[in-house]
């Protein structure tokens, strides 16, 4: 069965990752569903890039706790991707005649959906992931791919040499043709990092996926297995240099920093660019309500917030409540968090629907913002003065704090 509308290209968006280094922020949701920047979820950026690049067919591959993600993306209407001749399709792992198979690696996830891609029979396939913050014109990259007559084009970014060993590092020749690819090299011989954005010629990709799947020792991962294999086979792989802002919010620190970046007078990343707008699927909330004694200083604030207290250098998402006398500094409040009267929140990330009770104090305010650890309060937690001071007293509470020294401080007393 084939679509009567042959597509020039379609996008496959990998959204199955847990993002385990984000700790309790992704306890109950997939990383692409994590709130970001006051009103977005991380997947908004990739999906908006697709629609702003005139891609009308996107397969979204899910696996880890997809329930919020599924509800959030629906059939893609929020991104104008609800289109009968293509559109957005969620592709979870499934049970077939031979039983169920979870996605083993990034390449395997695409392999399992070869039928989906064949249906549209595109010339090119764009592979992206749903957990990066950036604004990119994939159409320009496709034009480059076609111009180079490449088998695979990989979008790359120059990174500081000292950070290069954290990335997949690409060495290219003077014509930008890739001659070497190394996952997290100890001694990088280039500072061009792969952004995990690939444009494949579909016929090449299909063959490679089938071949890779046949190798029992393969982890079926693009970076670890498929790219080296293609290089070894002498395929034409090119780099495409991206200049703008790109951030993998893979850790608590990078998540925190890239949110804070938005507060700068001239942020590296402009969420207000109206030519390539970031779409999201928001609830209909009333305007934000700033009460007479509120003080707001250098903040990003979403709709539906009620601010009675003081907020400073913070990103405050939709539906947040900050009570009278409360003080929030250098923090990220996720949607529907509640900071009750006279509570203090310093350099913390407060999860969705979490409640910081009256007079509670969160975060190490003794140090400067630069030095202090980031405290993370898990979504749906309810903190009270009692629960903080005397853990044993209350038996109905659950929250976890993640500290910068990479240790979990788990406070959990039953359910």
């Amino acid at each position, binding site marked *: 069965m084939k679509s009567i509308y042959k597509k020039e290209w379609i996008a496959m968006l990998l959204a199955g990752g847990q993002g385990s280094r984000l700790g309790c922020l992704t306890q109950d949701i997939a990383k692409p569903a994590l709130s970001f920047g006051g*009103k977005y979820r991380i997947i908004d950026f990739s999906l908006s890039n697709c629609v702003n690049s005139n891609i009308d067919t996107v397969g979204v591959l899910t696996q880890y706790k997809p329930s919020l993600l599924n509800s959030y993306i629906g059939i893609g209407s929020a991104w104008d991707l609800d289109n009968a001749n293509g559109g957005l399709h969620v592709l979870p792992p499934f049970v077939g005649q031979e039983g169920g198979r979870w996605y083993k690696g990034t390449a395997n996830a695409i392999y399992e959906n070869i039928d989906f891609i064949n249906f549209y029979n595109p010339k090119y396939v764009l592979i992206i992931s749903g957990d990066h913050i950036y604004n990119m014109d994939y159409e320009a990259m496709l034009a480059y791919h076609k111009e180079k007559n490449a088998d695979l084009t990989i979008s790359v970014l120059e990174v500081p040499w000292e950070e290069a060993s954290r990335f997949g590092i690409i060495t290219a020749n003077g014509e930008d043709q890739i001659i070497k690819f190394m996952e997290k090299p100890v001694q990088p011989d280039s500072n061009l990092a792969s952004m995990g954005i690939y444009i494949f010629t579909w016929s090449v990709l299909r063959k490679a996926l089938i071949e890779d799947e046949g190798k029992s020792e393969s982890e079926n991962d693009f970076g670890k297995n498929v790219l080296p294999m293609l290089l070894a086979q002498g395929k034409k792989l090119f780099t495409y240099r991206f200049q703008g802002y790109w951030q993998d919010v893979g850790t608590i620190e990078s998540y925190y920093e890239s949110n804070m970046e938005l507060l700068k007078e001239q942020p590296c990343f402009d969420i*207000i660019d109206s030519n390539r707008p970031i779409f999201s699927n928001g609830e209909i909330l009333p*305007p*934000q309500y700033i009460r007479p004694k509120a003080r707001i*200083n250098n903040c990003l*604030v979403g*709709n539906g917030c009620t601010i009675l207290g003081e907020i400073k250098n913070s990103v*405050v998402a939709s539906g947040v409540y900050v009570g009278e006398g409360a003080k929030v500094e250098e923090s990220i409040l996720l949607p529907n968090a509640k900071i009750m009267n006279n509570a203090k929140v310093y350099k913390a990330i407060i999860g969705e629907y979490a409640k910081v009770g009256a007079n509670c104090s969160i975060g190490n305010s003794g140090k400067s913002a630069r030095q202090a650890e980031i405290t993370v309060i898990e979504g749906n937690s309810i903190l009270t003065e009692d629960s903080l001071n005397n853990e044993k007293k209350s038996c109905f509470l659950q929250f976890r704090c993640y500290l910068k020294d990479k240790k979990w401080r788990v406070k959990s007393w039953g359910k």
Partner: protein
Amino acid sequence: MGKIIGIISCNYLMKNPEGLTRDRPLAALPFGGRYRLLDFALSNMVNSGIRTVGMVTPYHYRPILDHIGAGKEWYLDRKTGGLFILPGATHGIYFKNNKFALRDITKNIEFLEKEKAEYVIISGCSNIFNIDYTNVLRNHEETKVDITLLYKELILNADEDPQGVILEIDAYGRVQKLESNQGKEGQGTKYFADVFILKRTFLLDIIKGHQNMENLDLLDILRENISQLKIGTYSIAGYFGRIYSKQTYFQRSMELLQPSVQNELFLGEHRVLTRIKDNPPTKYGPSNVIRDSLVSSGCIIKGCVSGSIIFRGVVVEAEASITNCIVLQKCVIKKGAMLENVIVDKYNIINPGTVIKGQEGDPLVIKKSRMV
């Protein structure tokens, strides 16, 4: 609530508009930072479970259609029922105080004929309140009246809406008289809320019984037949805001800054639904001088804002100052400008250093500008 359908009459004017309704029907007047007046009437119906709504549109219907589109945000883009646009009559209606002109409905009688619902609720669009009509319907059924009029107990202002109607009610809650509110300043009255409920077939009977008297208003017919009809009443308990002039528009807007009004209208179980726009969150600069205001998304606020309603996409530059103002969408208030008691309509750019002050209680209106 499949047994009740709604009709919203948007085919009437604000009598004292001063530019606010020059380019738009009253129903499409922006209100409360991100809403339009008709959102309240429409949300009340939708939140009460009504899934079929006919909207009687005025001659200038484009702003209404631009706003409600397919009715998606109100869950009215449906296969069964949904939103129906009912073009209102165009000629001569502005000479009358009609809100529920008979011919607006006669012209669209197919809408009433093809539906199977038992009841119809008919509403105006210029009053701001948040109500669940489920209880109203139950009351209507229990009291076995022909028609139920909703009213609000209030004290009349000096400057009253010429279209206002007050009800005289007997001990059993039955309407004895529908009067004009003019000349009754200061009195506590039962003010007709422009909402009533009746059987669909009864409404069809009324229409067919007055086929050649198209200039009538439904209220005229009630008045004439008051002795034969059982007209019941239902008193609205919560906040009720009337908008019929520039001044009342301003007053109602400012009332939204009261926590009780804010809670009642916006933060209860029934949300006011409106068109979704993709705007980033609002960014506040390091000025620390926003207070006592409602601010919509997509704004950049660096100047001083107090006691004001700021619509989406407004830019307030540093050292600008806005006090007791309503600033509609996409206005830019340049550095050092000072506004007080002003309503700034859409797309205006207020130049650096400009100072505009209206009187307290009588704000100045800066008319809508062309989008640049």
